C-alpha cells in the first residue's frame, strides 16, 4: 500500500475513533504519560481494531506494517492528540517474552497484554541502583517451587495502576554483579507487596516505590535462564532507548509553540512570531530537531536492512530528550508569568473546570518541570554518552 493511502486510512480511523475526552487527554499530557483511565479506553479501541501492537510480529498480534507505516501511525496518533497508551507491557515486556519466554508464558501473557487485561509496570531501579543498575540488591531466594523476594524498586511508573510488575532481582552474589541477576514476573496483589506513591514536582503521582516483604512468586514466573537476566534487561533497554521516535514528540511541541507564538505578545503589540530574537532561537532548536528526525530515519533504514540501531539509539535518546527540553524552555519564556498557575483539576480530561489564563499555557510549566526527568530516566544523558564513547568512539 502506498504510504499516503495508508496515512489517509489512519487519519480516517483517528477522526472516527478518538472521542473528545481522549483528545483532551492527549492535549493535556504534561509528561510521557496520559491519564491512565482514558488511555486505557483508547487502548481498547486500538485492540478491537487490531492496531494495538504494530511493533510485534504478526503471528503474535502485530499489524504486519512496514517500519514506515508504523512511523506514520505513531505520528498521526500524536498529532491527532491521541492519549499515549501506557506501553510498558506492549513495548517492553511483550517483545521480550516473544524473544525469551516459554510457550506457556507467551500463550498466557501476550493476549492479556494486547487486550489490556494486564497492565505491567517495570521494576528495575532501586534506591541504591540507578545508573549503576547491575548493583541492584532486591533478592529472590529459591524455596521449593517458589522464589521469595525481598527488597524495593523505585521510579516505578504507574505502579499504582498496574496489576503486574516485571522485575530484575538478584539470585546470586557470585561473580560479576551482572552475572547474578534474573528476570521475574510478579503479581501486584501478592502478599507482602506494597506500593508507595511518590508525588512529583508538578503535584501529581506518576512514580512509585514498590516494596517486597517476603513476596512468594512461583518459580515458573522466571523468564529466561536464572542468573542470566542481565541479557534480557539489555535487550529491553535497547527497546526503551531505540524504540522511541523523538521527532514525533518534537512536532507536537512545535505545533504547540506555534499556537503560542501566534496568540501571545512578547511586548507591546508584537506577537512572539514576529519577535526576531525568538524566531532565531526557535529556528536554532528546530534545525536540530530536523537533523534528529533524519537521524531517526537513518536508524529506521538500518533496521529495515536487518541491522541494529546499536549505539545510535543512545544518540537519539540524548539528542531527542535535550532538544525536547529546549522546546520546553522556549515555551516557558513565551508564556512567562501566565505559566505560573497550578491548576491540577483543569488538567484532568473530562473536567469542566474553566482554565485560568490562556489555555495554550495551561500545561507549559508542568511540561517544563516534568521533562527534566527525560535526561535522567531510561539511562541518563551521562550514561548514554558513556555508551557512545565506548561503543562508537572506542575510547
Amino acid at each position, binding site marked *: 500500500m502506498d504510504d499516503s493511502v495508508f496515512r489517509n486510512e489512519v487519519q480516517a480511523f483517528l477522526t472516527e475513533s478518538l472521542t473528545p475526552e481522549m483528545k483532551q487527554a492527549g492535549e493535556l499530557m504534561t509528561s510521557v504519560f496520559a491519564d491512565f483511565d482514558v488511555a486505557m479506553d483508547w487502548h481498547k479501541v486500538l485492540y478491537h481494531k487490531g492496531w494495538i501492537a504494530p511493533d510485534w510480529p504478526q503471528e503474535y498480534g502485530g499489524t504486519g506494517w512496514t517500519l514506515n507505516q508504523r512511523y506514520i501511525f505513531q505520528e498521526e496518533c500524536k498529532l491527532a492528540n491521541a492519549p499515549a497508551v501506557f506501553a510498558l507491557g506492549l513495548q517492553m515486556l511483550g517483545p521480550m517474552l516473544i524473544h525469551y519466554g516459554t510457550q506457556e508464558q507467551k500463550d498466557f501473557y501476550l493476549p492479556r497484554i494486547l487486550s489490556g487485561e494486564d497492565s505491567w509496570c517495570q521494576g528495575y531501579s532501586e534506591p541504591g541502583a540507578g545508573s549503576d543498575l547491575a548493583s541492584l540488591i532486591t533478592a529472590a531466594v529459591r524455596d521449593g517451587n517458589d522464589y521469595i523476594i525481598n527488597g524495593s524498586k523505585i521510579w516505578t511508573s504507574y505502579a499504582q495502576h498496574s496489576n503486574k510488575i516485571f522485575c530484575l532481582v538478584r539470585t546470586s552474589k557470585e561473580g560479576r554483579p551482572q552475572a547474578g541477576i534474573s528476570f521475574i514476573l510478579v503479581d501486584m496483589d501478592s502478599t507482602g507487596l506494597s506500593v508507595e506513591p511518590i508525588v512529583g514536582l508538578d503535584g501529581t503521582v506518576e*512514580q512509585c516505590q514498590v516494596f517486597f516483604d517476603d513476596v512468594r512468586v512461583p518459580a515458573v514466573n522466571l523468564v529466561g535462564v536464572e542468573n542470566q537476566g542481565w541479557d534480557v534487561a539489555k535487550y529491553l533497554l535497547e527497546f526503551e532507548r531505540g524504540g522511541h521516535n523523538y521527532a514525533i514528540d518534537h512536532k507536537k511541541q512545535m505545533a504547540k509553540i506555534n499556537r503560542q507564538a501566534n496568540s*501571545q505578545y512578547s511586548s*507591546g503589540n508584537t506577537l512572539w512570531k514576529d519577535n526576531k530574537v525568538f524566531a532565531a532561537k526557535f529556528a536554532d532548536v528546530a534545525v536540530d530537531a530536523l537533523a534528529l528526525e533524519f537521524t531517526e530515519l537513518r536508524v529506521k533504514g538500518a533496521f529495515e536492512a536487518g541491522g541494529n540501531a546499536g549505539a545510535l539509539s543512545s544518540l537519539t535518546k540524548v539528542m531527542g530528550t535535550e532538544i525536547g527540553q529546549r522546546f520546553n524552555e522556549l515555551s516557558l519564556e513565551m508564556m512567562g508569568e*501566565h505559566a505560573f498557575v497550578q491548576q491540577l483539576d483543569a488538567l484532568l480530561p473530562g473536567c469542566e473546570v474553566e482554565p485560568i489564563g490562556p489555555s495554550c499555557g495551561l500545561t507549559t*510549566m508542568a511540561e517544563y518541570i516534568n521533562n527534566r526527568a527525560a535526561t*535522567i530516566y531510561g539511562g541518563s544523558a551521562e550514561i548514554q554518552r558513556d555508551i557512545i564513547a565506548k561503543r562508537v568512539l572506542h575510547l
Partner: protein
Amino acid sequence: MFIEYSEEQSMLRDSADRYLRDNYSFESRQAAIKEVRGFSADHWQTFADLGWLAMTFPEEYGGFGGGALETMILCEQFGKYLVREPYLESVVLVGGLIEAGADRALKEKYLSGLIAGELQGALAYLEEGSVADPTRVQATAEHSNNGFAISGKKTVVLNGPEADFFVVSARVGGKKESARDGISLFVIRKDAPGLSCNNYITYDGRSACELQLHKVAVDKESLVGDLGNAAAIAGPVFSHGIVAVCAEALGAMDALLAATIDYTKQRKQFGQSISAFQVLRHRMVDMYMEIELTRSLLMATAWKLDNAAPDADQCVAALKAKMGKAGRYVSHNAMQLHGGIGTTDEFSVGHYFKRLAAIGVMFGSRDSHLSRYSKLSV
C-alpha cells in the same frame, strides 16, 4: 567601589541567616504552603519584629532608610532558605511604589501597616496576552465625581489572595495599549465594590489571583505617582524588584550547589562517589563559576542603584540577563546530578528549581534584558 558591607549590613545578613537556619526548615515551609494562607503568619510577624519589613523605608515613616543593598542582603537569605513569605510582593513592590509615589496621607495610612506586618499588598500590573510588559495596559480609569472608576482585568497578581489592598495600573484618557504615557497607579482596597478575585496557587508554591474590576470607585487621593506617569516611579521600583529576585535566585543557587556537592559525595555508583567522575566535577565547577559571576554583578548593581550611578539601569538589565542564564544552568544541573530524587515533591532541590524557573521569567526574560542592555550600551 568595591563593596564592603557596613557593620549594620553584616549584622543584618548574619541575623537573617541565623534566624532562618534555626527556624525555617524546608519541612515547615512545605507544611505551611499546604495551609489556606500558604505561608506562616508567625514568621511574617517575626520578620516585622526583627525590623526586616522596615529596612528599606524612610525613617520618617518608621523605616531604617536602607536601599537596594539591604534588599539584596535579605533576599539572598530568603532565597537560600526558600522563604515563601511575600516580601517581594508586599514590601519591595507595593511598599516601594507607595513610598515612591503616594501622597503623605496615603503613605501614613499604608506604610506603617506594611512595616508592622499588619497589612499585605499585591501589585496588579500584568494583563492577558503579554509577558512582563507593564506598558500593555487595557484597564481603564475614567474620571468620575470625586475621583476615578477603574475597569478591566489583571492577571497573575502575586500575593493577591492574601492582600488587603492592591496597587493597580490603569490607563487614563486615551486607550493606546502600549504607550508608556497615560498609565496611572491606584490603591484599591480588596473590599471595594466591583472588585472580584479568582484565587489560585502557583507551581513555585506561592499564591496569585486574577482580578476583575468593574467600575471600581476610587478617590483622587488613591492615586500613586503623577496622573498618567506611572513609569516614572515604576521604573526604579522594578529595578529594586529585579535586585530582590536576583538576590533570591543567588541564595537559591548557592543552596543548590551545596546540596549537589553533598549529594554527589554521598551517592555511590560503580563503586565510588559519583563526585569522583570528572564530567560531574566539571559540571559543578561550571555551576560555581556561573554563581560567582552573578554574585559580582548583583553586588555591583545594588551598589550602583543606591549611589544613583549613571550606568545603573544598564547593570540592572545585565544582572537579570545573567541571572536567567545562571539560574537555568545551575538548577538544571542540580536536578540532573541528583537524578530521580530531585524530581520528587518531598526533596527541596526541585522546589529551588521551580522557584528559579519562575524568577527566570519575572520582570522580563533573559532575552528582553539582553535587548535592553544592548539598547542602553550602544
